[in-house]
Every structure is written in structure tokens, then in C-alpha cells.
């Protein structure tokens, strides 16, 4: 065990917020690699630079991802972290756990790895931080026996994730936990064997509060919504009226001004066709207002972070789709297959689907995936007349109105 000092990192054990330095030190009691990680990190703090190198090779038989190669830049000085790879494990939907399962993760990881984890990575996986190349296969084999599987990495479907949904949220408009589980299982090939131009992510949020930030963080955002009108329980409205200023806190903040509170009758009314289903009123008055009865999801495409063509937020391609476990989410799966096929055919290497659509045009994309255009897809129509008309639809006979040749 290295017994060197870490004066800079020790500064980060002070203060009230839980300290990652303390966590690395705890792991270092049992793991020499974790001890050396601390040394490398102290050096980074002193020199203000990183000391890790990227590595390409993933070592599990039959898979093209799930392990990310990581090497320290001075292996002679830090032999225990010369190889310090990341293993991604598929998390259970909604990050619910029983303690038995968590202890299994700990036991296997204690045997082979640094004892350090991220609960969880930004994509959603359980992240096991730091193991040697020779241990990758045994780690996988043991986790596999214990009922776990690897998550995605590389140019593949990355690990889908979802909000807590019907597990503990009154707002959920579809079963996000089941959708995530079922759809992840459906696309195991796409997840484990990278075959696309670049990575692709799906996130499932049960309503427009979008707790998974799917619109910003996933190529395909599945956001719960309803098709009819939200439901108001007037008795519960009266209870709220005694506690909050409904006009100020709810009606005045409704973006479409479609809510009216009648102070005399103490009743709240909504102009259903004007409501854009933003969730604000429901968030403030969950006991009194709930989504309509016809529930499903809006499907949006194209979200991604800044690299390369700027950050994109996903945009609407299907305003309303039923998301039912009973029909096995068939419509959604079918749509995703068409979308990926189009992207796989037209996308350039390292181009996210949003960028491919932007480069080639929404029209080509919609035609390619056979989805009809609807006004819900855009904030407003185009401001220029430069339409690429489909010439096959036009009279190209080259004749004037009287039939003479032009």
C-alpha cells in the first residue's frame, strides 16, 4: 500500500457535502489500485492536468462494448492502475434495488476490481471503475451468472433509462419502467454489438416534466402525454383554494392562459383545446388536476450534446403514440427500427442522427421512415419559398396551357 501524502485532496474531505476523496480512501484500504488512483489524482491536482489515456479494445467474448479501456500515462510509476478499465452494467429500470442485489454487485466487484463505482453514470448504467484487462472476462462471467448484463458503449444503442414513473409518481402517463425494460431487451443486438455510424440513446420520461432530461440527453426522447383534456376535481380545488392563491400560482402562469379560477364558485375551468400539456398546473395542484384519460407518449428525435454541430434538443416526430405493454410496445419498436435503418444507411461516421437529419433535411427523413408531416412537428412553418418540389408530382410534359410545345 502506498502511504504517500495527499495534501491537496485532503482539502476536499472538509465541508459538509459527502466527499469522493473519502470514498477513494475507503476503497484504498482493500485495493492497491484505489490507493494508486489517489496518488495519480493528487498529481493531477498539483499539475492541473489529467493522466489517463483512452484505449480501444474491449475484452468480452461476443460483445462489442460494455467495457471502456483506460490506461494511466505512466505505467511504470503506477503499475496497479496501468490498466484501469470501466465496466458498464445495465441497471434495473428506475434504479430500484433490493439490498441483496446491491450486495452481490459489491461482492463481485470487491473480488476483481478497485471497489470504486459510479452510482450511476450519466447514461444510467452502474459504472464499475477500474479493473485489469485479464479480469474483464471473469468479471462478466460472474455478473452474468448473478443475472447482470453489460451496458452499451461505442457506436451502438447506449443503455436506455427511465424516470421513476408509475413506481412512485402520480404524473406518469405510461409505464416507463416496463417500457425501458422491455425495449432494452428487444434491442440487445443493437446494444451489445455496435454497428451504427455513432452512439444512439433512448430515454423514457413519464410526463413533460421530463425528469430524465430526455429532450436534451437522448437521440430518442419518449415523453409521456395525453390526447384528451386534463381532469379537474373541483372538491380538491376548493381545498387548495384555502391554502394557495390559485389565480396567481396556477392560472397566471399557465403558458396558454387557458385556466380560469372563479373565486365565487371556487371552481377551476380549462379550455381543453388550448392547453399544451406543459404540466405546470398539475405540478402545483396534484390532488386536484390530473392528466386526461387517453394517455401515451410524444416521440422526439435528435437530442444530443454540443459535439460536433452544436447541441440539439429533440424535436417532435410523433405527437401522440400509445405506449402499452399489452401490445409489447410494437408501434414504438417498429418506428425505431425504421429510424435506425435510415440513419445507418445515410449517416456519416460519427454523426448523431440529429445531425444526419439536419444535413439531409427533415423531409427526406420523414419520407425515409414513412411518417406523415403534421403541424405539431414545427413551431412555425418555413419563411422562405425554396421548396424542393417533387418533380414526379408535376406536369413535366413541357407543354403550354393550350398543349403547344414550350
Amino acid at each position, binding site marked *: 500500500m502506498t502511504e504517500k501524502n495527499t495534501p491537496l485532496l485532503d482539502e476536499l474531505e472538509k465541508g459538509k457535502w459527502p466527499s469522493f476523496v473519502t470514498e477513494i480512501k475507503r476503497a484504498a484500504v482493500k485495493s492497491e489500485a484505489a490507493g494508486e488512483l489517489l496518488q495519480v*489524482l493528487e498529481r493531477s491536482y498539483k499539475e492541473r492536468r489529467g493522466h489517463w489515456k483512452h484505449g480501444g479494445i474491449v475484452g468480452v467474448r461476443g460483445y462489442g462494448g460494455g467495457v471502456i479501456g483506460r490506461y494511466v500515462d505512466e505505467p511504470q510509476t503506477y503499475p496497479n492502475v496501468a490498466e484501469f478499465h470501466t465496466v458498464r452494467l445495465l441497471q434495473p429500470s428506475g434504479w430500484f434495488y433490493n439490498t441483496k442485489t446491491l450486495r452481490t454487485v459489491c461482492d463481485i466487484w470487491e473480488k476483481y476490481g478497485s*471497489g470504486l463505482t459510479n452510482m450511476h453514470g450519466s447514461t444510467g448504467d452502474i459504472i464499475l471503475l477500474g479493473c485489469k484487462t485479464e479480469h474483464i472476462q471473469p468479471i462478466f462471467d460472474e455478473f452474468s451468472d448473478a443475472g447482470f448484463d453489460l451496458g452499451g458503449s461505442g457506436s451502438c444503442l447506449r443503455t436506455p433509462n427511465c424516470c421513476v414513473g408509475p413506481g412512485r409518481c402520480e404524473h406518469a402517463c405510461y409505464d416507463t419502467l416496463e417500457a425501458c425494460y422491455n425495449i432494452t431487451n428487444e434491442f440487445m443486438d443493437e446494444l451489445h454489438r455496435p454497428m451504427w455510424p455513432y452512439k444512439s440513446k433512448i430515454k423514457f420520461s413519464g410526463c413533460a416534466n421530463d425528469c430524465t432530461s430526455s429532450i436534451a440527453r437522448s437521440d430518442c426522447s419518449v415523453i409521456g402525454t395525453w390526447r384528451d383534456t386534463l381532469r379537474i376535481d373541483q372538491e380538491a380545488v376548493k381545498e387548495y383554494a384555502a391554502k394557495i392563491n390559485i389565480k396567481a400560482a396556477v392560472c397566471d402562469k399557465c403558458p396558454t392562459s387557458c385556466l380560469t379560477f372563479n373565486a365565487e364558485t371556487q371552481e377551476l375551468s380549462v379550455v381543453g383545446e388550448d392547453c399544451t400539456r406543459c*404540466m405546470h398546473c398539475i405540478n402545483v395542484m396534484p390532488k386536484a388536476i390530473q392528466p386526461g384519460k387517453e394517455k401515451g407518449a410524444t416521440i422526439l428525435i435528435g437530442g444530443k450534446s454540443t459535439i460536433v454541430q452544436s447541441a440539439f434538443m429533440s424535436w417532435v416526430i410523433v405527437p401522440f403514440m400509445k405506449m402499452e405493454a399489452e401490445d409489447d410496445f410494437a408501434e414504438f419498436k417498429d418506428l425505431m427500427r425504421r429510424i435506425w435503418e435510415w440513419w445507418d444507411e445515410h449517416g456519416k461516421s460519427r454523426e448523431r442522427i440529429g445531425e444526419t437529419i439536419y444535413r439531409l433535411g427533415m423531409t427526406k427523413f420523414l419520407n425515409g421512415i414513412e411518417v406523415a408531416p403534421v403541424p405539431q412537428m414545427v413551431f412555425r412553418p418555413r419563411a422562405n419559398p425554396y421548396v424542393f418540389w417533387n418533380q414526379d408530382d408535376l406536369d413535366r410534359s413541357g407543354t403550354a396551357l393550350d398543349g403547344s410545345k414550350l
Partner: protein
Amino acid sequence: MAILDQGPPHYKKMLPPIVQENYGKWKYHEIPSPGVLKHVGESGAALYSVRVGTPRLVSIDFIRDVCVIADEYCDGFLRWTTRNNVEFLVSDEAKLKPLLEKLEAEGYSVGGTGRSVSNIVHTQGWVHCHTPATDASGVVKAVMDDLYEYFNTMKLPAKLKMGLACCLNMCGAAHCSDIAIVGVHRTPPRINHEVIRKGTEIPSLVASCPTGAIRPDPKNKSVIVNEDKCMYCGNCYTMSPAMEIYDPKNDGIAILIGGKTSNARTSPSFSRMVIPFLPNTAPRWPETTEAIRKIIELWIANANDGERVGEWVERIGWERFFTLAELPFSDMLIDDYIFSRETFRTSAQFKY
């Protein structure tokens, strides 16, 4: 033999009985005290979730510790949130108070609900990534220590969601946060021609650059970087360790604000840059913590009830924000990348 493609563990095995019984039948929720959510089902059943902050980078000892607590107070069930908090799921109300006392005694941080600052979604940084321009965990620790009073109370105008990404790849979805901390490199890679000649595959290296800044240099058996085109993303370093992107004196942090991903009231929006650069003053980044605190205090003093940072700034106007915040405005804050034009003011209306 290992089974391939068996998928994630089934979530149903992870749900406490009260969740199974009330699945999809929750009626409403309240926040009885900071860090405690009370979800009530149509049946009248109540589930208490106690939210505890974690550093995200945790040891298996930490996981085992929270398992012991979950066994004692939650019949062995707990969950994690998207923002790396742990939630203890208490179905027996009698156990709530003892749990809170236990957590207090053991020094856990309970909070992050409602009008508070929740845990900062963040990335790997110097701990484990190859292209970071700053650390992730350390900056988060310093900022959360400073903002702790807003984590375990609910006295902000609205919720505050923060993100940190340690390089331009922005793994951490910082681009749509109320306040985003982004690590920035500011100098092009230094080329180690020796290392390139020893075996870097030049076509792959050239192809790795998103802006086409790298050209082969056949005479030298190496490459040339067109410095005007380089946006310091570090992708080339991923491809070859010969392209050293780190630069201790010039790497640092940019602050962006006003993004959100929820649709409530206003549409989701991107965070916008308000401070182009702060130095990497490890180990506690005082310039960064101070800059963030100032912005938050300004927001508290000026926002209407329930207004998120971005809603507030959009209401008063960004030009007004810069005046109030006494932040210098510079050409670095005017977009000159691909979709810049939408940010130019095509109107004669503005404030000072």
C-alpha cells in the same frame, strides 16, 4: 457458461411491496420536510422517500452502508435518482423519524427536494477520463459545500438543477441546466511528431477531428493542425496520445446559465454562456464557487415566486442580467459557431 444478451435485472424484483401494490395508482405527493417526499396512493397508502446526497463516485463500503440502513428501516429496498441521490423507501411511517435521526447521526446529507439545489450531475474529470480540462468530482464537492444551505432547505425561488461537464464533449448534459459548469481547453493540441511516427495511423487521426483541422504532412510523416479551425475538443487526443491537449495554465472553467429540460410553463431551453473563463484553482476552485454563489443570490433577490433561473433572465432580459450581475460582456459571449444567427437581436427593443 455466461449467458449473452440476458438484459438488465428485472425491476419488479426490486420494488418494495408498497410500490407493487400502488404501482401506477399514486394520487399525489407532498414534501413534509426538506429531503422527504410523501407519496400517497389512491388506496391511502403512504410511501416516504428520504433523499440523501452522494458524491456519485462511491466505494462498495458506502453501498454496503446504505444497504444496512435500508435493511433496518426500509425492509431492504432503496433507489437512486437521476441526479445520483440515494432514496430510502420507507413504507412504515413509524420508522421515518428514527431513520432521519440515524442519517443525521451518521452525517448523511438529507435534502435536494423541491425548491432546493439538488446534486450536480457530473462526469469523470481527472479521476478517470482522458480529455478533461478540469476535474469533475472536486469542483462539484467545492460548489456543493458552498451551497449546502440551499441543499437541505427549500428557500430558493424555484428548483435549481446544475450540471458539470469536464470537457467540450459535455457528457454530463450541462447544456440544459439552470447553471452549468463546463471545462474548457483553450489551446490547440501540441503535436509530438516522434510519437506519431512511431505508429499512429494518420488517416484515422485526420478523420477524428470534427472540424477538419488536421492535415497529413507526408514530408514529415506526421500531421499539421490548422490552429484557426481547432475548437480544442480533444478528440484527436482520444485517437492518439501524441496530440496533447491538456494545458495546465490555460485550461479552466466556463459558466453557462438559464437552461432547463422540463416543459413546465416554458419550453426546454439551452444554457447560455455568461462567464467564458475561470481559472482551474485546485483543490477548491474559489473563483468558481464565488461566481456561482453571486448568480444564485442575484436570482434569489430578483426572481418572482416559482421562476427558474432561465425564466427569470428571459423575463428581465439578458442585457439587464449582465448589468445586474456586474459581469463583463465580451466578444467571447457572442456566438460565432453554426447556429449563431438566432441569438442576434433582430429588433430595436432592448434594455440597459
